[in-house]
């Protein structure tokens, strides 16, 4: 037998034979799913060739600088504030023992339950003329000194105080599980607490911290509700203005493309900053961090420091909303409102179901497909979360309108029946856009539970004569149930909170709680926004606590 050299084994002909052998329906399904998810970005890219709209030159000359400046201002100031709130709190709760530490540890996550535009409404209400601050000052017999927060810095503060938990969560995970060995080593070497934190722990925690920070920055770029309420022009508000006020889709598309470039630059930066990091899975070596006992005075100081973000990110806005809610519930809370809530939960339920199905399909079809390139391509599916909601919405609108026009045309020519839009402006387009945007939210928990199941388990099933599909339902599904449930809950919450995408794509006769709150706020009836806002917050808080329990149990 002649030795088959590496050259002949990897000749083009043999590669093609193997490609044909290895391609199966799962390869195709993976490609289709990835294509459907990438479609909005592809559409925007294609539409760029149509050229910009008439007002584009006007925008470039007069507004673009402002969009760029404000967006960068927000990115920079939010980074500083979010790192300040997130990293200090996570280090203090991980490293020191003090009263109410346990409660504060999860209270620090709760600001995530309040969408940042709702925090913005609450803050406006506190600091406005005739607002809560003025009432309190007058009540105490003080001179009213108004603090104006309806500006760039105010917006940056509001976004930071409501988004810092992303950094808190990611850095706390590192501090709890990885920092102990480092601390012990540095203590043996006689390094002071302060020094070992800045010279050792912080540099090593950097990838985890920045991963959280990037999530915050994406949310900052995604924000529409808070920026527009505070009157700060950003890329996202610019997209809305060109779409709705100027009615120039071409311009909105050009702005979207710029925003996507900015987001991709952030992602590349994140990848670059952890290029040298190897994830070591040291399960046995690392003990949980040992908490230091400190003096009563220090305990009090830390308690105050850690309570600050909870107070300003959660309790204060919540109190303001409860106050407003108390004033307005009789006017807002009526039959129509119940209907609206049901509608919102219905949409969230449908979306969460589809998103979980698509995420699971993507994970498993990529696994069952045997072509390496397609497997790698499937990772692109999670990029939807990076793309701001407004951009996803516009990206979804382009192909759906295109398909609708074609459908209407064909129906007209065949049945001489003129229909309205079939996809555009319907629930289908809205749910499709949600699925794209939130696929990563579902993908990550499902993938991580799937990775916990050893590959030999499905392999064993296959050697026992059971195919991929049946193996999934009989073996894998029962083993990854918790991941799927967490994914469902997370998407459900995100849909409740979502604003910009919903504003653009929601069907005419359908509303969500988030949109209702936004509409009240835009109509100068911000007090009435409290009830829908509180509904969102409570439905988002309950699952957060439930999820914490669920994950703690595993």
């Amino acid at each position, binding site marked *: *037998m002649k*030795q*088959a050299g*590496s050259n*002949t*084994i*990897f000749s083009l002909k*043999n590669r093609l*034979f*193997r490609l*044909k*052998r*290895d391609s199966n329906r799962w390869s195709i399904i993976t490609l289709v799913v990835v294509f459907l998810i990438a479609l909005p970005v592809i559409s925007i890219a294609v539409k760029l060739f149509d050229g910009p709209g008439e007002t584009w030159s006007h925008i470039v000359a007069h507004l673009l600088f402002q969009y760029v400046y404000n967006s960068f201002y927000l990115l920079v100031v939010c980074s500083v504030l979010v790192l300040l709130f997130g990293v200090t709190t996570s280090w203090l709760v991980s490293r020191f023992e003090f009263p109410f530490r346990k409660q504060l540890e999860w209270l620090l996550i709760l600001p995530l339950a309040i969408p940042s535009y709702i925090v913005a409404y609450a803050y406006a209400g506190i600091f406005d003329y005739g607002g809560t601050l003025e009432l309190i000052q007058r009540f105490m017999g003080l001179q009213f000194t108004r603090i104006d927060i309806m500006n760039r810095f105010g917006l940056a503060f509001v976004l930071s105080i409501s988004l810092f938990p992303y950094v808190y969560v990611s850095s706390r995970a590192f501090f709890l599980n990885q920092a102990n060995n480092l601390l012990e080593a540095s203590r043996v070497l006689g390094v002071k607490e302060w020094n070992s934190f800045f010279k050792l722990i912080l540099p090593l925690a950097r990838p985890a911290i920045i991963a959280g920070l990037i999530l915050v920055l994406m949310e900052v770029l995604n924000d529409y509700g808070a920026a527009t309420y505070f009157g700060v022009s950003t890329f996202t508000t610019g997209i809305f203005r060109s779409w709705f006020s100027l009615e120039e889709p071409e311009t909105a598309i050009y702005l979207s493309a710029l925003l996507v470039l900015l987001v991709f630059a952030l992602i590349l930066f994140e990848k670059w900053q952890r290029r040298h990091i190897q994830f070591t899975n040291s399960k046995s070596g690392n003990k949980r961090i040992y908490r230091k006992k400190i003096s009563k005075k220090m305990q009090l100081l830390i308690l105050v420091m850690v309570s600050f973000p909870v107070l300003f990110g959660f309790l204060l806005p919540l109190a303001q909303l409860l106050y407003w809610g108390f004033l307005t519930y009789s006017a807002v809370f009526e039959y129509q409102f119940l209907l609206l809530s049901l509608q919102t939960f219905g949409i969230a339920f449908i979306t969460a179901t589809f998103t979980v199905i698509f995420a699971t399909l993507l994970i498993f079809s990529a696994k069952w497909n*045997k072509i390496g390139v397609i497997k790698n391509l499937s990772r692109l599916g999670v990029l939807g979360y990076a793309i701001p909601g407004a951009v996803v919405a516009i990206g979804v609108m382009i192909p759906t309108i295109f398909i609708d026009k074609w459908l209407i045309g064909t129906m007209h020519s065949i049945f001489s029946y003129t229909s309205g839009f079939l996809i555009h402006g319907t629930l289908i387009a809205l749910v499709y856009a949600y699925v794209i945007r939130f696929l990563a939210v579902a993908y990550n928990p499902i993938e991580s539970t799937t990775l916990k199941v*050893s590959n*030999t*388990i499905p*392999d*064993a*099933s*296959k*050697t*026992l*004569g*059971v*195919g991929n599909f049946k193996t999934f339902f*009989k*073996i894998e599904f*029962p*083993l990854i149930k918790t991941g799927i449930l967490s994914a469902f809950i997370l998407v459900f919450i995100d849909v409740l909170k979502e604003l910009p995408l919903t504003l653009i794509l929601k069907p005419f006769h359908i509303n969500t709680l988030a949109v209702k709150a936004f509409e009240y706020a835009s109509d100068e009836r911000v007090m009435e926004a409290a009830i829908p806002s509180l509904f969102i917050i409570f439905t988002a808080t309950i699952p957060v606590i439930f999820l914490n329990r669920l994950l703690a149990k595993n």
Partner: protein
Amino acid sequence: MVRIESLSKSFDKGKTFALKDVSFSLKEGDVYAIVGESGSGKTTLIRLIAGLETPDSGFIELNGIQVSSIKKMVSPEKRNIGLVFQEYALFPHLSLLDNILYGISKLKNKKDRAQEVLELVGLAEMKDRYPHQLSGGQQQRVALARALAPKPSLLILDEPFSNLDSMLRSQLRNEVFDIIKKTGVTAIFVTHDTQDALSVADEILILQGGKLVQKDQAANLYTKPTSVYVASLFGNTIQLSKELQSVFECPLKTDCCHAIRNENIAINDECEYVTHATVLKKTFLGNDTQLLIKLDNGEHLTVITKHNNITERITIGFNSKDVLEFRE
């Protein structure tokens, strides 16, 4: 019943090969051991046979039918191969009985068959327990029963005893292979432990660096290894360099390599080739004594002996029939 022809597999597009140009065939009803260090390609080989990996070249035939080649893949679920995984891979959410029923759900008398294999492995009274309630040895036997239940035409065991401590190991090894012999199924088992292979396999395949270096019966591997590597798997050997050959005054062929097993070096002057040496160090090993000796040309050797009254000056030697010859 299994025929493999120039099988290759690379996981990095040809930069390195996990398996390179491997060919052999296996007879029905025999028990084969695949021996090799970690990274020798043994797990890749059985995964290829089971259909869990796709080959880059070559083909696999089962019962005369091609199941894997560059153009064709019969999926693992259609191969009727039983596989016992190293970590057992029992379904954690299913009871012992359900684990076994899993592969035979289409069988008419599946309950009877499950009972049968459970009795075969001696776990019938535990059938309602879950995997986590069983000991390692019991899980091992469940995995075996589960793989045997669908009456596979070929049974593969991947490092079946590596997760067990050494006391349990030899006991379970005999139990498992008694069961396998009873069923008469053709079996392949993978191991890095030569003792496992020697004690139960009809034939042993030795893999090194992704290549099949020798396939033979245990006795032949011991007496006629084709490489130093194979020889070293069955005990320590001493390479007979040109210098050593002249010290022992044994003229050997010059186009070959030669070696002698440590245990074939005797301490007396009745051998064909002898020389004198000084004992530097004695290490008591229980049954034997290990000696570090210095030959008169200054070379150090380690030999094992059963003698216990060793003088400082000794005569050592070996016979020509024990000289191993390799073409390398």
